[in-house]
């Protein structure tokens, strides 16, 4: 993570955001998952969305990707107000999502998964030859290590599956890619590979939204960090400025809570390990 990359991310903020959400509310029965949350991302910027379990991160992502509809608030793409009532509507607006569960079809091969829902060919027929060539190009562009594109994704490793899911999100040439907990199920080496992919996406001037529980990952790749708590914006930091303690304090919602106390005690007795 060179400082230069962070500055390029920050300088992107001089033009308007490509995706912007204002005052988003969403409830499931009695549960208020989101209560007036704001969010935006610029081209070439990696924004991390963090928060405790149940903070509303996945719900916000699903609203942006058309899986759920917001109860209130508005959404803008390139400054224009939009209504995203389905996943395919989001895709055609250039918003791609890598869901927490990856949403891959285990029985289908890599090519089928990469082009699922946007197969190449005529109206009714698929052109497997073109799709396979395109698959290799896409994977090469990401520097992905996949042995063959003609095996079911069930037989790939966790990191390879994550790679396929990320590559799939790029098929429609999106402007924004959202990744929901992409490293949660991965080991150290595979996590590093996924973080490299995230940086590739930024180099390609995409807006990247990254949800993660892992503060080290977030601080490693993000330009900006947005903290959600109980469905509201709790805080926002530039990744270069923030310490892990500040982040944890914002996530848990107070500076005088158990976690902060514990950290303070540890710091007094020689700092965190």
């Amino acid at each position, binding site marked *: 993570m060179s400082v230069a990359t962070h500055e390029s991310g920050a300088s992107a903020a001089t033009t308007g955001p490509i995706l912007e959400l204002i005052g988003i509310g969403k409830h499931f029965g009695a549960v208020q998952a989101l209560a007036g949350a704001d969010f935006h991302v610029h081209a070439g910027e990696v924004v991390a969305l963090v928060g405790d379990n149940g903070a509303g991160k996945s719900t916000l992502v699903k609203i942006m990707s058309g899986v759920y509809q917001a109860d209130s608030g508005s959404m803008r793409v390139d400054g224009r107000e939009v209504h995203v009532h389905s996943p395919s509507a989001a895709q055609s607006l250039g918003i791609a999502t890598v869901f927490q569960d*990856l*949403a*891959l079809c285990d*029985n289908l091969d890599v090519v089928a998964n990469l082009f*699922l*829902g946007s197969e190449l*060919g005529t109206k*009714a027929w698929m052109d497997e030859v073109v799709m396979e060539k395109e698959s290799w190009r896409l994977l090469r562009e990401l520097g992905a290590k996949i042995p063959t594109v003609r095996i079911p994704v069930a037989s790939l490793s966790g990191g390879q599956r994550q790679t396929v899911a990320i590559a799939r999100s790029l098929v429609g040439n999106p402007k924004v890619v959202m990744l929901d907990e992409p490293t949660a199920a991965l080991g150290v080496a595979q996590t590093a590979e996924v973080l490299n992919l995230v940086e590739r996406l930024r180099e390609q001037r995409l807006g990247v939204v990254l949800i993660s529980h892992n503060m080290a990952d977030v601080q490693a790749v993000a330009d900006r960090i947005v903290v959600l708590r109980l469905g509201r914006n709790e805080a926002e930091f530039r990744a270069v400025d923030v310490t892990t303690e500040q982040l944890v304090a914002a996530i848990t919602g107070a500076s005088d809570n158990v976690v902060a106390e514990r950290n303070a005690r540890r710091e007094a007795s020689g700092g965190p390990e």
Partner: protein
Amino acid sequence: MNGSVSPARLGRWAPPAALAVIWLVMSLSNPRFLSAVNLTNLMLQIVAVGAVAVAVVLVLLIGEIDLSVGAVSGFGAAVTAVLSVKQDWPAVLAILAGLATGALVGLAHAAMVTRVGVPSFVVTLAGLLTWQGALLLVLGDTGTVNIDDPQLVAIAGTFLAPAAGWALAAAVTAGSVVAIVGSLRRERDRPARRVWPWVVAGAGAPVAVVVFNADRGVPLAVVVFLLLLAGGDLMVRRTKLGRHAMATGSNASGARRAGIAVDRIRLAVFMLASVLAVTGGILAASRLLAVNQSSGSTDLMLTAVAAAAIGGTSLFGGRGTVWSALLGALVVGSLANGLDLMGASSPIRLIATGLVLAVAVGLDTLAHRAEVTPFREHSRPGR
């Protein structure tokens, strides 16, 4: 990927292996099993069940089940028969009316599944009872309608002239050779196509024609069945509808989030399945020269579901091929035919079929479990 014997790999090769073993045992115990007459009869016996099994395969691929296929095949065939015999409709129109009945039935099933959200198991169980009743209603008091329309009778009663059979074999073999040469000479960048299915088709066609011509010739009904299989296979593997159907069966919520209109896929497949079931019913009626109260029995449904599963189509959705309907129908049909020749009783046939089915479903379950590795258990919502 390597030489290891995974359950999925085993599942793929078990059906042809089982068929080979059955044929070996049957031909050793009774030489008449491999006679041209008997093999032709065997093919005629499996055509109707096979067509219904294609319907079952399609529904299994989207991760649903259709228990009504037997009743629907009888009901649709009864509509065709009654319109032909009692209303004097021309054969083509009577057949179209029967198929349209099937389409409406499938529409009703799909509406219950997608709009109301009733599991397909229950919807089609209710359908089984409903359409069985409808069949009896349509047949009327006599409980049987004898078909006399020459064209309807001709579907199962026509055998191609020897020369026509050879022309057919030549076309299949020539097509296979073109396909094989094409994939061997492909440019480096093009995907590898599997060659062996074409080898089987190209070599099998002349052999089959030799056998059929030694008896009465290639049965028209068998040609119709093979066309259904080829068409279904093309749809599943080459069209977007087929790909989306596979995706729906593999991971419905993932498919929906990929922008696929999952409910429309279900609608299309349930309608197609019922139309195919009626096709099987009409083939059966043409062979029996009648539609009666035992047409579309539960036995037909059970055999068709068993055939689809034995042929290697997964009960867990998203895995299988249309050709498994042929393989499975051949296994079930050969068992019945061979045991019949041996003079074995019906209990033996049921037990043998049941055991084969148990093995097939066991392999399917192992293959499915191998796919669901621990770290992605959570990635299968709704399972």
